[in-house]
């Protein structure tokens, strides 16, 4: 008995011939309240967006081209909901995915308050179409986002692992910085401070949208999928070659498309659309490889949501080919922007929120609760399967909006917008329940 005790204990289910202490591979994460505050802001903006969307549909002013309310609504989704949530996720996930610390955590905290103030001013200025306000708050928000980009780029260059995932995330931030340059040029043109930029704003606006939606959100989603999907499905030893293919195809697609905005050659447009299809298919193949080697056999609803979003992304890319090859493409084009944002981008973010938010809240409120003997699990905070209806409504809504725009059917657009608003309302209720349970800490 004495000898057995001295020999120690070894896991019965495994043979461990030797083990090597590694460098600490945790402990890089910033305090959990940092990503959480960004995410709470993002979730609040999702709810505001849902209310504003429903309000605009009810008033019959939705999708009026270039309307101040429409511009404000779009930025409430992109800068408010998506960007706030994504910034929080980036601060948390980068440290986990690349095993590196955030260069300036205090700066990230300060930028949060500056961002919220700038965002509120900018959305208000867009609604009232107050040019001076758009200029001031636009510059303010851009400066904050440059701070975010700088902080992340400095952090990312410290990463030791630099695979396709790193390249996606690194370039996403470079694209965001470039998207902001385009936004600044647009604002200067609008304020008559740069006559050259005022003359023809269409290619600048298109470049801004492509860099922000595709270059930033799209690249981030592709990149972080290669960490999050394996992590949540417990996948190991999968084939990663398609990740490289997805990277190069999406990079070529994005820049060919931007080139087409400035040099409207048919070949550029068609080639960029084909590359976009190739990028989404390669990404789908990369995700398939991950899922083939998963240990958790049951695919959870949020991960299914990511797959649905990916399917919408493939549909979007096919729509792009239809647009590129048809000479009545303007109609198709009108539906593609909202479809990409409300479909692929929003649905991926919403689905992953069902996994990320409860985890962060658990870490914040319950990670130390072992000492009290309670064993609260993440599943106690939120039943992930509750995402099913949200995902269904969101996907159906995004599809209906895009099809409605394509067929020039007002009622279909309105029905789609209602479905998206309802799905975001349910999403808000689910997310708030996580925080309510955390406050009621048992």
């Amino acid at each position, binding site marked *: 008995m*004495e000898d057995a*005790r*001295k020999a*120690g*204990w*070894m*896991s019965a*289910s*495994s043979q*461990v*011939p*030797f*083990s*090597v*202490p*590694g460098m*600490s*591979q*945790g*402990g*890089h*994460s910033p305090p959990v309240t940092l990503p959480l505050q960004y995410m709470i802001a993002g979730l609040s903006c999702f709810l505001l967006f849902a209310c504003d969307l429903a309000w605009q549909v009810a008033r019959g002013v939705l999708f009026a081209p270039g309307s101040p309310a429409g511009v404000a609504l779009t930025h409430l989704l992109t800068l408010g909901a998506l960007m706030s949530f994504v910034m929080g996720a980036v601060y*948390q996930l980068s*440290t*986990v*995915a*690349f*095993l590196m610390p955030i260069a300036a955590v205090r700066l990230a905290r300060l930028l949060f308050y500056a961002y919220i103030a700038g965002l509120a001013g900018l959305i208000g200025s867009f609604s009232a179409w107050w040019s001076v306000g758009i200029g001031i708050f636009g510059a303010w928000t851009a400066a904050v986002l440059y701070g975010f980009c700088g902080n992340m780029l400095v952090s990312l260059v410290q990463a030791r692992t630099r695979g396709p995932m790193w390249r996606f995330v690194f370039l996403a931030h470079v694209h965001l910085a470039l998207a902001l340059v385009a936004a600044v040029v647009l604002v200067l043109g609008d304020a008559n401070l740069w006559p050259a930029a005022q003359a023809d704003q269409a290619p600048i606006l298109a470049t801004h949208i492509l860099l922000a939606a595709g270059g930033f959100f799209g690249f981030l989603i592709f990149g972080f999928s290669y960490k999050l999907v*394996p*992590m*949540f499905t*417990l996948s*190991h030893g999968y084939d990663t070659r398609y990740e490289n293919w997805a990277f190069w195809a999406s990079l070529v697609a994005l820049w060919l498309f931007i080139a087409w905005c400035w040099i409207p050659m048919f070949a550029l447009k068609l080639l960029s659309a084909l590359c976009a299809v190739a990028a989404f298919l390669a990404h789908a193949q990369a995700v398939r490889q991950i899922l083939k080697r998963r*240990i*958790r*056999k*049951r695919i959870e609803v949020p991960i299914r949501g990511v797959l649905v979003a990916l399917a919408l992304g493939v549909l979007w890319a096919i729509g792009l080919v239809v647009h590129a090859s048809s000479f009545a493409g303007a109609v198709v084009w009108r539906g593609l922007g909202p479809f990409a944002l409300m479909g692929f981008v929003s649905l991926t973010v919403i689905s992953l929120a069902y996994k990320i938010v409860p*985890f962060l809240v*658990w*870490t914040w409120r*319950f*990670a*130390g609760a*072992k*000492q009290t003997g309670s*064993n*609260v*699990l*993440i*599943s106690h905070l939120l039943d992930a399967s509750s995402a099913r209806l949200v995902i269904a409504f969101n996907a159906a809504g995004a599809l209906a909006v895009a099809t409605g725009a394509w067929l020039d059917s007002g009622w279909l657009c309105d029905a789609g917008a209602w479905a998206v608003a309802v799905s975001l309302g349910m999403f808000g209720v689910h997310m708030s329940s996580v925080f309510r349970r955390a406050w009621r800490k048992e």
Partner: protein
Amino acid sequence: MIAVIDFREVEAHLREVYDPELGLNVVDLGLIYRMEEPEEGKLVIEMTMTTPGCPAHDSLAGAVEWAAARAFGVAEIEVRVVWNPPWTPERMSPEARRVLGWT
């Protein structure tokens, strides 16, 4: 040196530490590689995570330390998180495999 720590008791306490995401305890998941008592009352635990950079790294290692400290005779604990050999699903107990649907 007199060995005072009963590893079976420590293991029983570690079975109360759950991976918050999977809802399985760290012993059944095969995350605990080995335990030793190099000095009287000193417990060294080598454990791993399901994936490098696991977000639950700190909280899980802390929970293991706390749970093991409840065992009789444990005066000092060192929890080492190791990455080599990496965790593989073969390390899971049959019960954990069943719960995850992995056979």
